[in-house]
């Protein structure tokens, strides 16, 4: 189990250009597998163009209390990139003036940003339809100062989306660290206790499943059924929906794929499962990702690869929705992760 980020370890793969090099060379350079650009060109889907903005996803910092094996952010306690209140103010201006109906806060553990609560309070006043916080659950049990988070989320009608890689302790702790399963279960029970995830409740609680190794997620509906049965039978836990998300071959997951000699097979699996219908609905067509320092990206993955939006409007301070609409999405081979099978996005399957 990892305890430090790749960045802290000085690992080559902490550099986004090294990751992009790997994704462009080898099997893709030799022509064994088609590049993503070639593949989507076969069905005349290149270039992918941004449609109307619906979702603003803000990454408020890479600091996290966990160091998960698969993390595409390479997040951890040693990451110091944190969004300032000034940048948050700029984000609030954009939220007020944009047509986006969903605000999605992510990290790291977003709750570890010292201005997190201030930001949630201010953002909830703007009257956005769906206000998501991606919580890793264990943060709620990590320190006394976080114990009241379920009540805080409830007060601001936050939609909680939480990672839960499996309904068994063994598989969860292997991916996310020892003790994560028990803390997550306790946090889910506390969220249920204030009304989150209960049948018919407006307090939305959804779980995110992503595979613990070098394989693709199974059918989302079937997985949701299995999760619901197991969590109810074993712990009396309720939740609304399960989002099945594919691991994208970047950052720590890429490092794992290479170290375990699974990289080529995994890329074959992604390419073989390529689904043109998923390309139609990839999240980058209706989402913008904002980094801790205010830069704009097509998605959180491109943010980690430091591939900025292809637009003159590149920073929150010069945000221009008209300019951004219709922009060409920046792609590389990691994009196969969002188009495999039923597709994958931060909201689960797309096709």
């Amino acid at each position, binding site marked *: 189990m990892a305890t430090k980020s790749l960045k802290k370890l000085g690992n080559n793969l902490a550099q986004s250009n090294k990751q992009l090099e790997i994704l462009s060379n080898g099997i893709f350079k030799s022509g064994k597998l088609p590049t993503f650009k070639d593949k989507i060109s076969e069905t005349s889907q290149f270039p992918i163009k941004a449609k109307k903005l619906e979702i603003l996803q803000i990454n408020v910092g890479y600091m996290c209390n966990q160091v998960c094996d698969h993390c595409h952010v390479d997040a951890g306690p040693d990451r110091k990139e944190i969004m300032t209140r000034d940048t948050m103010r700029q984000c609030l201006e954009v939220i007020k003036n944009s047509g986006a109906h969903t605000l999605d806060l992510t990290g790291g553990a977003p709750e570890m940003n010292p201005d997190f609560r201030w930001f949630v309070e201010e953002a909830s006043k703007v009257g956005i339809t769906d206000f998501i916080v991606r919580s890793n659950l264990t943060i709620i049990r990590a320190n006394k100062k976080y114990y009241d988070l379920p009540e805080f989320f409830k007060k601001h009608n936050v939609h909680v989306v939480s990672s839960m890689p499996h*309904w068994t302790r063994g598989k969860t702790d292997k991916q996310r660290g020892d003790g994560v399963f028990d803390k997550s279960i306790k946090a889910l029970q506390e969220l249920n206790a204030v009304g989150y995830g209960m049948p018919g409740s407006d307090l939305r609680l959804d779980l995110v499943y992503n595979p613990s190794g070098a394989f693709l997620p199974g059918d989302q509906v079937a997985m949701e059924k299995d999760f619901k049965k197991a969590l109810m039978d074993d712990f009396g836990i309720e939740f609304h929906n399960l989002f099945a998300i594919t691991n994208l071959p970047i950052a720590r997951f890429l490092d794992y794929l290479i170290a375990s000699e699974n990289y080529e097979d995994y890329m074959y699996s992604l390419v073989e499962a390529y689904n043109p219908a998923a390309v139609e609905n990839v999240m980058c067509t209706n989402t913008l990702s904002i980094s801790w320092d205010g830069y704009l990206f097509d998605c959180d993955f491109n943010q980690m690869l430091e591939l900025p939006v292809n637009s003159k409007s590149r920073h929150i301070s010069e945000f221009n929705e008209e300019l951004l609409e219709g922009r060409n999405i920046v792609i590389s081979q990691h994009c196969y992760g969002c188009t495999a099978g039923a597709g994958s996005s931060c909201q689960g399957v797309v096709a």
Partner: protein
Amino acid sequence: MSKPYYDAADLRKFGKITEWSEELGTKFFDYYGKVFEEGALTAREKSLIALAVAHTEQCPYCIDAYTKDTLQRGITKEQMMEAIHVGAAIKSGATLVHGVQMMNKVNKLDG
């Protein structure tokens, strides 16, 4: 032996069998796909049966394919191992139940 008989990468070429007999190959893959669809049995149950049979058939390609398939369905390694034991129990039972035939023969010849 300079090369192994089995190559894991050959599994990816399975579809090519249709190139030398298109009609039969296509019919086989259609049938195969249909068999594994959700039916009176769930796709999950079928995947576990396939994993057990892959072992009794000792097919390395099938073992690779259905180990991955069961993992993708969230099936745990304990469940996977139990499924294989079901296959192994039938295999050993099938061997041992023939012991009755041996006993019958002994009793007849040397009773």
